[in-house]
C-alpha cells in the first residue's frame, strides 16, 4: 500500500477546507513563524557578515604579518625592519589579485591649542589602501593624502567635530621613538574620513608612512603588513589558513609571524561558529510556540469529526489508516504554510529590505559590538533548509498526538459521543 494513495490525499485535502477559517488561522501562525525564522536568520547573518567585513576593513586584513611582540606591546621597539623588502618577498608567494598594505601604527597624542587627545597614529601608503581598508574609500571632506605630502594628515570626522577643528588646520602629533624620547611634528589636516564605527573615527589618524618614519627617525620600518584577499568568501575557513602557513614558512627566522584574521579577531570567529547553533535554538523556540497552536487546531478538527472516524473504523479502516489520514492533513497544512512563508520571506529580504535595515536609532548601542549602522540581510540556503526542516519534522511529530488520539476511537465510543 502506498502511503500517498489518492483517496487519502483527497480526503485529507477536503477535510482541511471543511473549516476554512480555522485552517486559515493556523496557516497564519505557521507562516508568521517561518517568516520570523528565515528573516531573522537573514538579518542575523547580514549583521554577522557586516561585522566580519567591518573588522577586516578596520586595518586588520585577512592576514597580517607582525612582530609577535607587537601584539603584546604596540611600541616602535617591536617593529618590522626593511618592511618594503619583506612585503615584496611575501607578494611573490601570493596570487596577483592579493593586496598588501604596509603600515606603521603607534600610539600617540594629537594636540591642538585647546585640547590633547590620545590617538592611534597610522603611517600608510595611500595608494596601497584602496580596497583594503576604510581609509582607502573616498573621504568625507577634503582631499586625499598625496604620496609626497610630508605634512598632510587625515582625521576622523568624529574627532574633527569633537575637537572643533576644520580642514586645513594645524595639529601637533607626538609619539615615542625607539629610545623612548617624545618626538613631535606639526601636520595640517587635509581631509576627514567617515568609518562605520564612531569609535574608529575618534581613534585613528593617518599620515604618510614615509613622514611618520622620518618623524621617528626609523627609516624603512613598519609595524604590520596587512594582506587582503580578493576572494569574496575569504571569511570562510580554509584558504586563509593555507596562505598563513606558506607565509610563515618564508618568514622563518626573521622574528615575524603571519596570523589569519580568525586568530586576530577571536571574538568574531567564535561568534560565527556560535551563530548556527544560536539560530537553531531560535527556530526551536519559535516552533514551540507555533507547535502548541498546531496540535490544538488539529486536535479540535479531530474531535469534531469523531463520529466520522467511528464510521470509517466501522467500515473497516484500520487505526493506522486513520493516523495516515490525519498526518497527511497535517503535512498539507505545513507544506502550504512553508510555501507561503518562503515566498513572503524571499520577497521581504530581496525587495523590502534590499537597501538594508537602518539601525541608526540604536547607533551607539550596537556599535559597541562592531555592528554596522545599516544591516543588509543575507539569505543563506542552509538557514532556509534548516527553518523548513525544523518545521516539517517537529510539525509532524506534534501532529502525531491528535492522530494517535483519533486512532484510539472505537465505533462504539463515537456513537455515544454527541
Amino acid at each position: 500500500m502506498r502511503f500517498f494513495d489518492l483517496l487519502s490525499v483527497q480526503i485529507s485535502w477536503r477535510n482541511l477546507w471543511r473549516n476554512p477559517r480555522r485552517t486559515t488561522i493556523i496557516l497564519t501562525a505557521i507562516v508568521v513563524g517561518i517568516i520570523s525564522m528565515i528573516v531573522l536568520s537573514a538579518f542575523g547573518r547580514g549583521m554577522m557578515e557586516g561585522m566580519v567585513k567591518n573588522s577586516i576593513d578596520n586595518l586588520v586584513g585577512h592576514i597580517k604579518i607582525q612582530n609577535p611582540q607587537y601584539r603584546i606591546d604596540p611600541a616602535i621597539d617591536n617593529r618590522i625592519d626593511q618592511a618594503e623588502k619583506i612585503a615584496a618577498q611575501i607578494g611573490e608567494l601570493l596570487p596577483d589579485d592579493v593586496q598588501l598594505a604596509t603600515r606603521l601604527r603607534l600610539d600617540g597624542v594629537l594636540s591642538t591649542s585647546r585640547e590633547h587627545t590620545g590617538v592611534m597614529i597610522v603611517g600608510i601608503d595611500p595608494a596601497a589602501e584602496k580596497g583594503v581598508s576604510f581609509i582607502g574609500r573616498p573621504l568625507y571632506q577634503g582631499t586625499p593624502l598625496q604620496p609626497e605630502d610630508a605634512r598632510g594628515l587625515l582625521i576622523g570626522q568624529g574627532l574633527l567635530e569633537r575637537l572643533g577643528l576644520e580642514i586645513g588646520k594645524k595639529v601637533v602629533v607626538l609619539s615615542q621613538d625607539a629610545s623612548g624620547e617624545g618626538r613631535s611634528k606639526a601636520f595640517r589636516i587635509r581631509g576627514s574620513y567617515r568609518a562605520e564605527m564612531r569609535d574608529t573615527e575618534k581613534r585613528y589618524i593617518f599620515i604618510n608612512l614615509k613622514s611618520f618614519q622620518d618623524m621617528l627617525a626609523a627609516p624603512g620600518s613598519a609595524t604590520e603588513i596587512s594582506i587582503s584577499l580578493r576572494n569574496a568568501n575569504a571569511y570562510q575557513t580554509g584558504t586563509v589558513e593555507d596562505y598563513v602557513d606558506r607565509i610563515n614558512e618564508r618568514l622563518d627566522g626573521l622574528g615575524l609571524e603571519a596570523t589569519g584574521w580568525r586568530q586576530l579577531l577571536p571574538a568574531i570567529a567564535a561568534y560565527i561558529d556560535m551563530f548556527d547553533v544560536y539560530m537553531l535554538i531560535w527556530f526551536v523556540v519559535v516552533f514551540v510556540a507555533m507547535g502548541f497552536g498546531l496540535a490544538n487546531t488539529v486536535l479540535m478538527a479531530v474531535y469534531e469529526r469523531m463520529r466520522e472516524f467511528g464510521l470509517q473504523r466501522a467500515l473497516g479502516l484500520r487505526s493506522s489508516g486513520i493516523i495516515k489520514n490525519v498526518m497527511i492533513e497535517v503535512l498539507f497544512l505545513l507544506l502550504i504554510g512553508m510555501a507561503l512563508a518562503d515566498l513572503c520571506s524571499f520577497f521581504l529580504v530581496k525587495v523590502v529590505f534590499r537597501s538594508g535595515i537602518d539601525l541608526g536609532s540604536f547607533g551607539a548601542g550596537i556599535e559597541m559590538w562592531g555592528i554596522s549602522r545599516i544591516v543588509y540581510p543575507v539569505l543563506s540556503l542552509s538557514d532556509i533548509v534548516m527553518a523548513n526542516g525544523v518545521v516539517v519534522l517537529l510539525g509532524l511529530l506534534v501532529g502525531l498526538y491528535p492522530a494517535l488520539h483519533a486512532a484510539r476511537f472505537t465505533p462504539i465510543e463515537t456513537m455515544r459521543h454527541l
Partner: protein
Amino acid sequence: MRRIAVASFVVFLMLSSKSQAADGEALVLVQKAFDYWRGLSSYSEFSMTIHRPDFERTMILRGWTKGRSDGLFYVLQPPKDMGNGSLKKGRQMWSYNPKINRAIKLPPSMMSQSWMGSDFSNDDLAKSDSILDDYDHAVVEREMVDGHQVFTVESIAKEDAPVVWGKQILRVRDDFILLSEQFFDEDMELVKEMTAEDLVEFSGRIFPKIWTMRRVDERDRFTRLEYHILEFDIDIEDRLFTLASLKSKKRLQ
C-alpha cells in the same frame, strides 16, 4: 644703574636695526626676558592657588632651578600632598610620589597634561624654551608705562614648528620683566594668558610676585602663583637635579 644700562642697550639695538633687522631685536628681547625670569639659578618658595568654579585649593611649593633646563619642585603643603615632587632635566620630566616611593618618568603623552592639576601644563615647565626657536618674533608696539618702556612682541609660530599655538604675544618691560604672555590659536583667537602683577624686589632683583594663568574660554578658572621667597644666582650643585635627589626627603625641611 644696571637698569639704565640695559635700557640703553635695547634702545641701541632698536636704533641700530631700524627696519629690516627688527626680528633680531625682538628675539634678543624675548631671550633676555626668559633668562631674567629664570635667572642663572634660583631658589623659591611659592604658593599655588588652583581656582575652579566649585572649589579652590592652595598648595605651597619649594623649588630650585638652574640654567634653562633643570628644575626641581616639591609640595610642602597641604600635608596630604607633602613630598610630591617634580624633576625636570632638559626636556624630560619625572614625577615622584612619596607614598609609593616611586619616581615615574612622564611619558611624552603626559607632557601636555596639567602640572599638579593646575592650568600650567608639564610642557609649560619643560619646554618653554621652544618659544625661542619655533617662533618668528617682531616688536609691534612700544609704550611708556610708569616710566618704563614696555615692548609688545608678537611671536608667530613657524609653519613647520611642532607647536600648537598660532602666535604668542609677550609684553616685556625694558628691564626684561615679562609682564604677560598670551597664547593664540591658529585663527589668532586668544586661548590662554599668563599675567604678572605686583612687582617687588627679591634679593636685589625686581620680579613679579603674582603670576596668573587663565584660560580665556572658561570663566572662573585660573591658577595663581605667589612667590614668598625668591633668591637668584645662588650656588646649586648639579647633583641636586638627579633622581636620587628627587627621592631624598631632606629637602622638605
